[in-house]
């Protein structure tokens, strides 16, 4: 048993330096996820601000409409189709770094979900907080920044962490536009060695460990932010 395991391991990871598919793939996965998350948070934040400003004050009507179209289209179609459309249609006739395409696609996709997470956080804060801020003389933006946002962020942190986890795993379809991410790397090994268990399990374990590490840090941050609830 252990003889066979050792032989399998050697064949899948050591021979021909096949471990490099895993390591390089992991690098690509992390790179795409990280930048897509940043893009998603920036986009989502912007959309959430526009939408909740519209809901609270009735201003920004046109932008709000635009945001709603964005949310409907992105949340209503599969992320893989969005990725393929951006790669083959939007950038079909230009040479462009495929990682950049993936970052754009996953970032734009994630932004829609992050927007709704942020918006629910903003709307969950009692209107009295806005009124208290305004009554002191803060303008709308200052009230948002100093008073509403910090509380909203604390409330949505678990949901935001969840969205990050979803995004990390969703990037595993990047192979469809021939990006060698972690999943694709493992699959390449499988196609070379004709043994599926080891490379795919390796990829699965790496995803799992990344998610667990991330979850640990989110929980620590949550605990820290909870210091004001007693």
């Amino acid at each position, binding site marked *: 048993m252990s003889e066979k395991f050792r032989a399998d391991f050697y064949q899948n990871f050591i021979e021909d330096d096949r471990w490099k598919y895993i390591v390089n793939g992991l690098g690509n996965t992390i790179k795409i996820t990280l930048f897509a998350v940043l893009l998603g948070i920036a986009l989502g934040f912007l959309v959430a601000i526009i939408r909740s400003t519209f809901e609270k004050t009735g201003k920004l009507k046109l932008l709000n409409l635009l945001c709603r179209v964005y949310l409907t289209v992105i949340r209503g179609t599969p992320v893989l189709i969005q990725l393929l459309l951006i790669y083959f249609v939007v950038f079909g006739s230009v040479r462009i770094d495929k990682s950049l395409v993936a970052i754009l696609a996953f970032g734009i996709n994630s932004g829609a979900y992050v927007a709704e997470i942020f918006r629910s956080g903003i709307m969950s804060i009692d209107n*009295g907080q806005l009124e208290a801020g305004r*009554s*002191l*003389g*803060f303008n709308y933006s200052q009230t948002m920044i100093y008073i509403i946002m910090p509380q909203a962020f604390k409330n949505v942190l678990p949901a935001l962490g969840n969205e990050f986890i979803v995004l990390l795993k969703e990037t595993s379809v990047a192979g469809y536009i021939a990006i060698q991410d972690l999943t694709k790397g493992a699959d390449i090994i499988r196609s070379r060695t004709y043994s599926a268990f080891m490379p795919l399990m390796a990829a699965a374990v790496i995803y799992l460990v990344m998610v667990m590490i991330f979850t640990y840090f989110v929980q620590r941050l949550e605990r820290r932010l909870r210091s004001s*609830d*007693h």
Partner: protein
Amino acid sequence: MTTNNDALIQVQHLGKSFDRLDVLKDITVDIHKGDVVCVIGPSGSGKSTFLRCLNRLEEPSSGKIFFEGVDITDPKTDIDRHRQKMGMVFQQFNLFPHMTIMRNLTIAPMKLQGRSQREAEEEARKLLDRVGLGDRANSYPSQLSGGQKQRIAIVRALCMRPEVMLFDEPTSALDPEMVGEVLNVMRDLARERMTMVVVTHEMGFAREVATRVMFMDGGYFLEENAPAKFFANPRNERLKNFLSKVL
């Protein structure tokens, strides 16, 4: 647009409607420096709406409000600047739960009036001591009782050194045994000649502290008088009826 009237707040023909419901109909009143105006009346009479129009937390539908001679109902007015001089205390306290008490008290003076942290904290500490909460500077609002929260809310407004304090039923959300401590703070303020507009159900407070008591019902001020006369010799029928029920 300015006026020559020396009233601190001058309300002219103020009206406010929500959809088709007219909550305020033609309110005209002057509030002078040092006035302690108590507004009483049944629920739904428009008292709170009137108060919230004074700093435009509610947008008036018609009429004008002058504060220190400036028409603050003019859309071109920088309302944020004028609100700095109009402290407001809410029924539900509305302290900022994610900040310590000290931060609650100093954030607005520091961000809006450019005061240094040391200066802002020094003043906050003085005021905290005066309301008997000097030891709570580093607590969070959730660690305080309702009465303590409301005293902090009053201090928060005072830290901006306002010209007038607006109180929107400040004791209505409190347990009965905590009402006294909040009213005491307000009594002290009145003694120091702070201009105050107080929407309240505390008839004892109105009788004792107010310089003027106003009765509101159906969106109108129906009667106004010095507290002694107001409670002893009400003229308006609805006021008589109201007082017979609450006294």
